[in-house]
C-alpha cells in the first residue's frame, strides 16, 4: 500500500487506485448493506426506525429513477428528431404520445370517465394486448419449424411439452382422461424438483455476490469492472 498526498488519488493497493469517488459509494453501500443484514436479526425498535427511514428513501430513489428514465427517453428521441435519424417519425410519435398522455392525465385525473382513462382503455390496452398476442403466432410457427425430436433429450422435452400443453386445457381430458393427471404430476414433481435445484443454485449465487458487494469486492453496480 502506498499513500499519496496529491488529490484526488488517495492510495493504491494491489495495483488499484482508490480515491474518495470510489471509496465513498463502496463504504456507503457496505454500511447500508451490513446494517440491513444486522437489523434482520436484531428486532430493537431503534434499528427498526432507521430501517424504516432507509426504506422510505428507497421508494424516493426508485421514483427518482423513473424521472431519470423519462428524461433519458425524451433526450434520446429529441436527438433523433433533431438530426432526422432513420425512423425519426416514430420518435416524434413517442414524444407527442408521452407529453399528450401525461398532460391530459395531469389536467383531467386518471379516474374512470376521464379522457386519460379513455386513452388507456382504448389505445394502450389494445396495443399492448396485440403485441402480447403476437406471441401465439410466433410460438405456433416456431413449434412447426424448430421443435424436432432430433435426439433423446429433445424427444423427452417434446413429449413433456405436448402432455402439459394438452393436459392443462379441457380438450386434453376429452382426448384421454388420464392426460390432466400426467400433466399435473409433471408439474408437481419433475418441474418442481428442477426448479428447486435452480433456485438453490441461484440463492447461493445471490448470497456469494451479496457478500462480495458488502466487502467492496463486487463494484459493477458503480460501473466499475473491478
Amino acid at each position: 500500500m502506498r499513500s499519496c498526498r496529491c488529490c484526488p488519488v488517495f492510495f493504491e493497493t494491489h495495483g488499484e487506485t482508490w480515491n474518495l469517488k470510489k471509496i465513498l459509494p463502496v463504504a456507503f453501500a457496505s454500511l447500508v448493506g451490513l446494517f440491513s443484514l444486522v437489523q434482520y436479526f436484531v428486532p430493537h425498535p431503534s434499528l427498526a426506525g432507521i430501517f424504516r427511514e432507509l426504506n422510505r428513501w428507497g421508494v424516493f430513489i426508485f421514483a427518482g429513477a423513473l424521472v431519470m428514465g423519462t428524461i433519458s427517453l425524451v433526450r434520446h428521441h429529441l436527438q433523433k428528431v433533431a438530426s432526422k435519424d432513420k425512423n425519426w417519425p416514430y420518435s416524434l410519435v413517442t414524444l407527442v404520445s408521452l407529453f399528450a398522455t401525461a398532460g391530459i392525465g395531469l389536467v383531467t385525473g386518471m379516474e374512470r370517465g376521464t379522457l386519460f382513462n379513455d386513452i388507456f382503455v382504448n389505445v394502450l390496452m389494445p396495443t399492448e394486448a396485440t403485441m402480447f398476442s403476437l406471441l401465439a403466432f410466433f410460438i405456433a410457427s416456431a413449434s412447426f419449424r424448430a421443435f424436432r425430436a432430433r435426439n433423446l433429450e429433445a424427444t423427452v422435452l417434446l413429449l413433456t411439452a405436448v402432455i402439459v400443453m394438452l393436459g392443462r386445457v379441457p380438450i386434453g381430458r376429452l382426448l384421454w382422461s388420464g392426460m390432466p393427471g400426467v400433466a399435473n404430476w409433471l408439474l408437481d414433481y419433475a418441474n418442481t424438483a428442477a426448479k428447486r435445484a435452480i433456485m438453490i443454485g441461484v440463492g447461493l449465487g445471490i448470497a456469494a455476490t451479496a457478500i462480495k458487494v458488502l466487502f467492496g469486492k463486487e463494484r459493477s453496480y458503480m460501473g466499475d469492472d473491478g
Partner: protein
Amino acid sequence: MSTLAAKLENLDRRWIFLLVAVSVIVPFLYPMNLPVRPTKPVKQAFDAVEALAGTGKPLLLSYDFEPGGDAELGPVARALLTHAFARDIPVVVINFMPAGAGLAENDLKRTAAKFNKVYGKDYIFLGYNPSVLNALLLMGREVRDAFPTDSTGRVLDSYEIMKDVHSYDDFGLVVDISSSIQPEYFIRYAVTRFGAKLVLGATAVMASDFYPYLQAGQCKGLIGGMKGAAEYERLLLDNNMMARLGDGMRGMDSQSLAHAVIVLLIVLGNLSFFLGRWKRGGHHG
C-alpha cells in the same frame, strides 16, 4: 412421400398464422363449452379467500400486471374480486406496475358496482408504488409508510376500511396477481419475514416457477393464467357467487383449440423432419 415432406418443409408460415387465428376466433363465435374441472392449487386459493368470510379482515390484492397480461390475468383478478365482494370481504388494492393502476381502477370499480360496494368502506385503491421491495418491507410494520394516501390523494385514516389496518397481520390474506417478478418479493419479504398468508395469480408460463413455494406452504394457493381463472370461475358458479360464464371460461375453448393446433403443428413439423431424413438416408444409401 418425398413431395409431402417438401411441401411441409416449405409451408408458407402465413398458413400457420391463419390456422392459429381461426382456432382462436371461431370458439368465441361458436362456443364448445368444454368442461372445466378445478385443480388443487386453484381450490386451495378459493378456500383461502373463502376462509376470510365473516372474519372482517380485509384481503390485500396486488395488481402487478399491465395491459399485455390483461387477457390472462384480468379474469383472475375479476374472479377474486367477485368472490371477495360476494362474501362481503373488504378489499384493499395496491399496485407496483405503472400501467397496472389503470387496470386495477377499472376492474375494481366495475366489479364493486355489481355488488353495490362503497369506496372507502368496502374497498379501496391505494395506488402505485415504484419500489416493490421497499414498500413490502415498510408494509410489514405500517401500510401508511408505503402508501400514505389512496390513489385519489386522501390520507388513509379518513377511510373506514383502513381504520384498524396497519400491517400484514391485519390482512386476512395477501394476493399477488403478477406477470413479472413481484411474487418472489412477496415470498421473500411479506411471507418469510412478516408471516403473511399469500395466494398467487400468475401467467400460465410463469405459474410453474411457483410450484416449489406452493409445495413448501409458502404460498397457500396458485391460480395459473386463464385456465386458473376458468377453474376459479367454475368454483364461483358452483357456489352461486357468479350468475354467468366469466372471461376465463369463455376463453378456455379458444385456448384448448390453440393448444391442439400447436400440438398438430409439432406433429406435422416432425413428420416433415423424419420424412426428409428418411429421404436423405435413402439417397446416401
